[in-house]
């Protein structure tokens, strides 16, 4: 085979690979190799943000049929974008949402909730972000769907309509 043809074939292959990966880059679904999906959430006990005497215990979550765990912080801009979705999930769909306040100042976090509303039934203070790590989180915001304490779905980044629909579907 002449070199010219070989190079043309090489070029075509490269273009195909380019198109394939471009689609990967443009699709919002980021591929997650996650060991946590299908597993029980790790064990933790955290102080509640709004009520000092309450504790967020992972065992409570295990007893619940369907719950959402949302990692958020007042300093996180995308959290503001997803906040209306959370409020909707709570108000319209009566979904139990538990917050994990990630590396945040409590005062700021409380102000944030005052300003935008509070979708959470309980909020654990994860000051050092350790629980988030155990959950396998990569950053804020991140949302976990739990069925009897088992993680069945995880969304990285701010919630959007697709993710909300997926959550509602899972609830059925």
């Amino acid at each position, binding site marked *: 085979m002449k*070199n010219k043809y*070989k*190079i043309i074939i*090489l*070029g075509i292959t*490269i273009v195909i*690979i*380019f198109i*394939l*990966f*471009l*689609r*990967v*880059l*443009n*699709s919002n*679904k*980021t*591929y*997650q*190799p996650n*060991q946590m999906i299908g597993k029980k959430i*790790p*064990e*933790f*006990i*955290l*102080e509640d943000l709004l009520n000092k005497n309450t*504790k967020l*215990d*992972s*065992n409570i979550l295990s007893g619940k049929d369907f719950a959402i765990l949302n990692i958020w912080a007042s*300093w996180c801009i995308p959290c503001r974008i997803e906040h209306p979705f959370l409020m909707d999930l709570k108000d319209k769909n009566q979904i139990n949402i538990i917050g994990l306040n990630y*590396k945040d100042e*409590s005062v700021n976090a409380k102000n944030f909730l005052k300003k935008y509303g509070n979708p959470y039934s309980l909020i654990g*203070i*994860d*000051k*050092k*972000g*350790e*629980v988030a*790590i155990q959950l396998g989180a*990569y950053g804020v915001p991140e949302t976990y769907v739990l069925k009897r304490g088992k993680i069945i779905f995880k969304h*990285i*980044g701010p919630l959007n309509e697709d993710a909300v629909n997926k959550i509602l579907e899972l609830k059925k």
Partner: protein
Amino acid sequence: MAGYIGNLALFFSLIFNVFLIFSAIKEIRSNNFNNFKIINFCNNSIFFLLLISFLTLIYCFTVSDFSNVAVYQNSHTTKPLIYKISGAWGNHEGSMVLFILILSLFSFVFARNKVSEKLKFYTVFFQSILILIFLIFLILTSNPFDQIDPKPLQGLGLNPILQDPLLAIHPPFLYFGYVGFSLVFSFALAGLVTNNFDKSWSKIANFWIILPWSLLTIGIGLGSFWAYYELGWGGYWFWDPVENASLMPWLAATALIHSNIVTLKKDKLHSWTALLSIFTFIMSLLGTFLVRSGVLNSVHAFANDPYRGVYILSTILLITFFSLAIFIIKKPKKSLYGKYSFFQRDNFILINNCFLIFFLSVVLVGTVYPIILDAISGKSISVGPIYYHTILAPFLFLFLFFMSHGPLLSWNKEDKFLQIKNFKIFFPISIVISLMIIFWFFDYKDIILILGLLFSVYLIVSIIFDWITQKKLSFNFGRLISHLGFGTLIFAIFINAYLSKEINAAMKVGDEIKIQEFIIKFKSINKIKKENYEEVFGNFLVTNKDKQVELTPSIRKYDRPVQFTSETSIKTNFIVDYYFAINLSEFEKEKIMVRFYYKPLMFWIWLSILLIAFGGIYQTFRLRNEK
């Protein structure tokens, strides 16, 4: 201010780079290569400017200059100094600077070598094209010296998972490995373009392949070591796509080391060696793409930015296209295969090269295919350990067999059927040893385990035999050590995989339970109060036959805010690790949930990886002194 200097240094290195490429093209056009001085001057300047830029960035991190975006996002005033410094490469921007600095460092050191002017010229030329591509990427999409105004008072902090001394040194090793392969890539292109791809090329290349390979081995080992001790999942390798991304260039480079030796010794396989040199670096680039473009999410992934992804994708594919096009056009034409005979060392190396490429393909498919499938059809498939183990294991045995015999065959003459004498020695010894192990330790017999033990022992025996009968020990020492490390690694992995045990139980003080062959006794519970936390130690005594081990895992309860953390307790010795952890939520309850892992030969896994890397490092020193 410091940021300003760093930025300026980056900018000037870009100018020098453009100038270098420009004058190099002029030289190539006029076809005289007398003017290496200018090129050399530019090459040195680029290196020093990049070094200044990197040091400035470290300075910004050390003094917590939050007007710098990268510092603001990845540091905090209260962090210990070591994490402030390592924060400099614990983020996308900073690690890209390190990436480019290493590209330039290799070019800088290489230009000081005794190599023919023309080869040196082209190598530096290709290397500086790589530097240019990544510099433009850095300055356009991820400048580490971007400023924020007004300056924030406090930073966001380094991801706590990265706050570990091991993780401070793990990335630099990996980068030296990954990026180090760029030099042999440029050198191969230089060899092809100048039609100098021959034995003398291989002789020089040898050093530049083995050095980054050894560093990459250490880098992978460190990552694995950290995962085992810190993540607390009781495992050391998870076939995570990012782990695979580092394994792929390692496999390609391992194949390259061996094919290059054949080129050096027998003046053949030129095309294959050239192709592997290019391919190894492309695998490194693929790893870079996977980690940085945002297609993956993992502990290692950096911030998502679609533009970055497209830029990296395009440049990587362009580099791939042009390097392979150069290969196609300038492919070494020599066909010096000579007389073919099966039982000859170079043939065995070639066979194992094919196996290595096969392993690489399995890992490549397992890593990339699910990502593409997910994006195109929306289907998620999970590719886990089972896929890798089932496909790789049978071929690994053959690989070990060829690896045992290859080094014992001669380069030039056809040997008798694997030198029947060796055959007669190795097989009985390894069968006896593996059967002894299996009958002493195992209740059940799994064929994969038996074969795994048999062939890894076979390899070890053949190396010991080779070692004893070796006439040129110092010459072959590096190879013997690395191969021995590989043999013990496979042995330890098999034993570990089949003998590991995990026990979960609920216990209260005074309880004694007997599960499998272990008796676990919960002796006592102690409380200690420290400044900012209260720690509860469980005191456990594990009895395994007549052996007793005391383990004291604990739970810490931090005050403000209330938070619980679990501290595992690991007792390591040559034979086995005892690994104990208490579950958190049972705190303050009467019964405590405990997890106990029994992990044999973990020490040998780490030692083997060290041996493999040490063999490589020994070899690079020997090659240095030889010159």
